[in-house]
């Protein structure tokens, strides 16, 4: 059975994203490496398309993703494959064109299969703790920034409404 995504900050410099899929491992692996599949699920912010999805799937090979919106704005990222163990492990560097992650990140995707259910664990290692916190706090997309703004409003309301509440 598919489960919902779990996100945790496993160390000072990392983020771990976990998700199970109701599919065998080799298919989930294919979803991570075939451009026609990646295009279908690796969405950008709402309303953005992915005009560029190039993958040279070999150690030392590069990949490049670009998302674009109707106003002509573009957001690109890419990196190099460092390690490939089909169908269980992919290690790749990643850098956004507008480097808001404070240097390259190293992303390790690990796939484990049990009774037809495959769990994907994506560990994203940032260059430093500041980079990780900054990336998390700034938000990856406009959608997330909007979420963060709503949150600030909510917190302001909460702060105003808690004089001496001891719980």
């Amino acid at each position, binding site marked *: 059975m*598919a489960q*919902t*995504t*779990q*996100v*945790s*900050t496993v*160390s*000072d410099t990392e983020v771990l*994203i976990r*998700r199970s*899929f*109701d*599919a*065998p491992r080799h*298919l*989930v692996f*294919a*979803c991570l490496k075939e451009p026609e*599949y990646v295009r*279908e*699920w*690796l*969405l950008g912010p709402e309303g953005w398309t992915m005009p560029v999805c190039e993958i040279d799937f070999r150690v030392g090979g590069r990949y490049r993703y670009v998302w674009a919106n109707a106003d002509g704005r573009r957001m690109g990222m890419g990196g190099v494959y460092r390690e490939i163990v089909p169908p269980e492990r992919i290690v790749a560097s990643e850098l956004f064109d507008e480097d808001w992650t404070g240097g390259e990140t190293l992303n390790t995707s690990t796939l484990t299969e049990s009774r037809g259910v495959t769990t994907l664990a994506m560990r994203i290692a940032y260059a430093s*703790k*500041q980079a*990780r*916190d*900054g990336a*998390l*706090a*700034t*938000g*990856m*997309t406009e*959608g*997330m920034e909007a*979420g*963060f*703004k709503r*949150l*600030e409003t*909510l*917190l302001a309301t*909460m*702060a105003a409404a*808690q004089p001496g509440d*001891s*719980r």
Partner: protein
Amino acid sequence: MDTDRLNATFAALADPTRRAIIARLARGEASVAELAEPFDMSQPAISRHLKVLESAGLVSSGQDAQRRPRRLEAAPMAEIWEWLETYRKFWEARFSKMDHLLARLKAGESRKRKPRKGK
């Protein structure tokens, strides 16, 4: 955007002892001695962790001058939780697309499945 505060919160929560302290305080306020008890750690060591949690605004001291019970401050915890939730939803949207794609790939595979050895 209060990035500094969020950074401080993340930094404070990056340590397993501090997360355990938070978990303990979620059940109710406690003095430094009470907090130190379950850990193999001296009270000064626990105090140092508490200082980090306090400067991140996650923990505050109570009125009782003798015990100075520490308690959890809900707002920054809510903030970090909400933040992770936004990030999580972003990825969940991607992965649910992948669910659909995988369902299609699975159907395609079973349709063309010829006698195939192993898995």
